[in-house]
């Protein structure tokens, strides 16, 4: 295991921050001024020029001085002035970067960079994650402490929180299931072979029953515990750790009107309430001046099985429509009000019905809309912009969300936010009964969420990564997990 900052040093830093606050009354300046440091296998690497962050938002990348990262990793560097090309070699891996150019090559195959290598104040800076990973190291960014952590592969290959054989049984929500299956598979590859985690895709309700009843070591859920469910456990004993986010896309099948349908929240609610029953309704055409909408009856297709997707969708409708809130409400299963609505089983079932049935409108998890090539609705968000469901608009929604940690960030006020997005949580006991299990649970959560190892898999499956603010909260949550009042993550 890699070494961590001692709590003492954290206290010292906070003391300095407080001092700075008192002296200058400029808190922002203090936080910004803290330089980024580099750690290699737990040691701090000296660097004349500190790493810098280039770019903004999701495209932001940490750039490090070329010499620092190549030397740290023990790679040979060569420089070709004529083509402005940097080439690094280490243990059979060859990587080439051209200054100011987004294209690079790794072992002969071309790659595209988010940020090109560049010269800043006389130093050549390269994107550290790209270089580190191309040369076979593991690279992590700790946003809270502003530390770049690089681990040589040999040391990090086997994270072994435990020596003896251990099998964790977990399960729950179906919505993030494809992601969790990839994660436990990937974790099994990098951890000790004696450790195995199984995730059963049995639904959020069964997941909650599983963790309360003691059959699951942790559980996935799309809906937080209700007051009724919390009644049986001590306050704050079950932690809700956010894992990823997802968007719920409104999909439609209107013969003749191919793409680009725009809807406002009240119109969407009235369609699902059964108030608006035809696609050529004046309220729909008013929002879509360029689109030819036929005289076609609307058929609402919704989930027949209890589902977190339904919960997120009805949570949004309850927020934006008073009639929906009072007549229907929110839940994993609700009593659907529109006449002739069809219940289909699973996201796949809704997608199949919508694509076959002319006039149908339904809601599916974003990946199903994309993979089935369904038309999605651009919804007017709280800022007044029409935004379609994308991964970026989902993260934007959480970054700007104004709800509590146990609420879905639906109807977010962000200008680029897509309004129907939800979190999915991992439920875990704060007070762990078994020391070995606790170590594996904490190591897995830390590896997957805090160290952001789930993000590449999440992107493949169209889940959105958590914004930094939420990740900082997750870190603190995981730190509270303890065995006999001793924190597990030390």
């Amino acid at each position, binding site marked *: 295991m890699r070494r961590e900052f001692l709590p003492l040093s954290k206290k010292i830093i906070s003391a300095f921050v407080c001092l700075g606050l008192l002296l200058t009354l400029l808190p922002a300046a203090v936080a910004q001024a803290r330089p980024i440091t580099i750690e290699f296998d737990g040691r701090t690497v000296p660097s004349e020029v500190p790493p810098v962050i280039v770019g903004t938002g999701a495209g932001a990348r940490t750039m490090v001085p070329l010499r620092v990262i190549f030397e740290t990793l023990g790679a040979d560097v060569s420089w070709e002035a004529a083509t402005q090309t940097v080439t690094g070699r280490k243990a059979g891996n060859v990587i080439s970067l051209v200054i100011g150019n987004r294209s690079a090559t790794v072992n002969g195959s071309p790659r595209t960079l988010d940020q090109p290598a560049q010269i800043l104040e006389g130093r050549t800076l390269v994107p550290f994650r790209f270089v580190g990973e191309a040369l076979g190291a593991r690279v992590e960014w700790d946003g809270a402490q502003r530390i770049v952590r690089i681990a040589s592969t040999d040391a990090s290959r086997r994270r072994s929180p435990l020596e003896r054989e251990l099998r964790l049984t977990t399960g729950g929500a*179906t919505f993030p299931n494809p992601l969790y299956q990839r994660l436990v598979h990937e974790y099994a590859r990098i951890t000790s072979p004696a450790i195995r985690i199984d995730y059963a895709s*049995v*639904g*959020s*309700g*069964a997941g*909650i*029953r599983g963790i309360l009843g003691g059959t699951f070591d942790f559980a996935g859920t799309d*809906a937080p515990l209700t007051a*009724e*469910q919390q009644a049986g456990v001590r306050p704050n004993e079950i932690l809700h750790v956010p894992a990823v986010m997802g968007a719920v896309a409104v999909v439609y099948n209107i013969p003749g009107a191919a793409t680009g349908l725009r809807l406002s929240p009240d119109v969407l609610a009235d369609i699902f309430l059964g108030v608006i029953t035809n696609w050529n309704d004046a309220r729909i055409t008013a929002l879509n001046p360029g689109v030819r909408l036929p005289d076609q*009856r609307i*058929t609402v297709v919704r989930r*027949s*099985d*209890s*589902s*977190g997707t339904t919960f997120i969708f009805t949570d949004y409708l309850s927020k934006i429509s008073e009639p929906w809130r009072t007549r*229907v*409400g*929110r*839940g*994993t*299963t*609700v*009593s*659907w009000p529109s006449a*002739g*609505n*069809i*219940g*289909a*089983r699973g996201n796949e*079932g809704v997608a*199949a*019905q919508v694509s*076959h*049935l002319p006039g149908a409108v339904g809601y599916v998890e974003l990946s199903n809309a994309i993979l089935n090539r369904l038309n999605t609705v651009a919804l007017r968000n709280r800022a007044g912009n029409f935004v379609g469901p994308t991964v970026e608009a989902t993260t934007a929604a959480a970054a700007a969300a104004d709800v509590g940690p146990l609420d879905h960030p639906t109807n977010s006020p962000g200008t680029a936010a897509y309004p129907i997005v939800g979190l999915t949580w991992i439920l875990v006991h704060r007070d762990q009964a078994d020391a070995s299990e606790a170590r594996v649970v904490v190591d897995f959560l830390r590896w997957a969420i805090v160290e952001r190892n789930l993000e590449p898999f999440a992107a493949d499956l169209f889940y959105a990564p958590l914004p930094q603010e939420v990740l900082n909260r997750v870190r603190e949550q995981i730190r509270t997990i303890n065995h006999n009042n001793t924190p597990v993550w030390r």
Partner: protein
Amino acid sequence: MEQIKIASPKRNGEGIFPFLTAAAAVSMLLLVGAIFLVVLWGAWPALRAFGPAFLFSAVWNPVIDVYGAAPAILGTVITSLLALALAGPLGVGTAIFLSELAPHWLKKPVSFLVELLAAVPSVVYGVWGIFVLVPWMRTGPGLFLESRLGFLPFFQGPSIGVSVLTAGLVLTIMILPTIAAISREVMRAVPQDLREGLFALGATRWEMITRVVLPVSRTGITGALLLALGRAIGEAMAVTMVIGNANVIPVSLLAPAQTAASQVVNEFPEAFGLHLSSLLLLGLLLFMITLLINLVAVWLVYRTDQWSSGARQPGKLKGKGVAGHA
């Protein structure tokens, strides 16, 4: 001495075998009893909260925790009876053909195919239903019924493919092999000399079938129909995929509805509290209905078996007008 040695293991076997079979039979009884008790225990909160009103209320709303089973129970009854009405004549007809009329070379392959239908998993029927039957029903028969008979409440449109009728058709195909295979077996159990006796008196094949085979195997066929009905009532997955799962009291055959089994399979994974209890109560109702039907079916098939296993009771046939059987 030697004789005793040979005899004693034989006596042991005689003693152990009945004991083993009795234990197997008793464990089955215990298992059914245990399932019943566990489901009853889980359903108890809902039973106490709603009482008999559970059967008659059409509201099923997990948000406000109010539950009624009328749409689900009616949906189950209508789809199952529809399937039975369609599959019954078809299955019995197939059985008559296979047992009495088919040429020898055709009997084996057709019987094999019928039994193969029974072995197809229900989810396969469901997927076939979604991708083939539902689009066809929407544009073909559904549209036809809607335009010609739409003035009747039972065929009120719009035809959207998923419907009570579609679910009934999928169930028809699913229960057909049960009816056909069991009916054929009970018809084959009709003593050959009864048939020959009637032919000897100059009866035609039609007379032989209607006056001997069908009357004699009547109880067995009824048993087959009831077993099939039991399967139709309990089928969840295939029905869920084609019925539309709308919680409404089914009036039009072209409208979506739901059955008790489909509701349980849909909502069980996320349910808790009173919602879970109500689903279990729905399961309990299904359990009692299917148990009752199976008991009746088993009893009827048992009666036919007794008749065919050598107990030739000529007296019984006299009443049916078949005289002179020696």
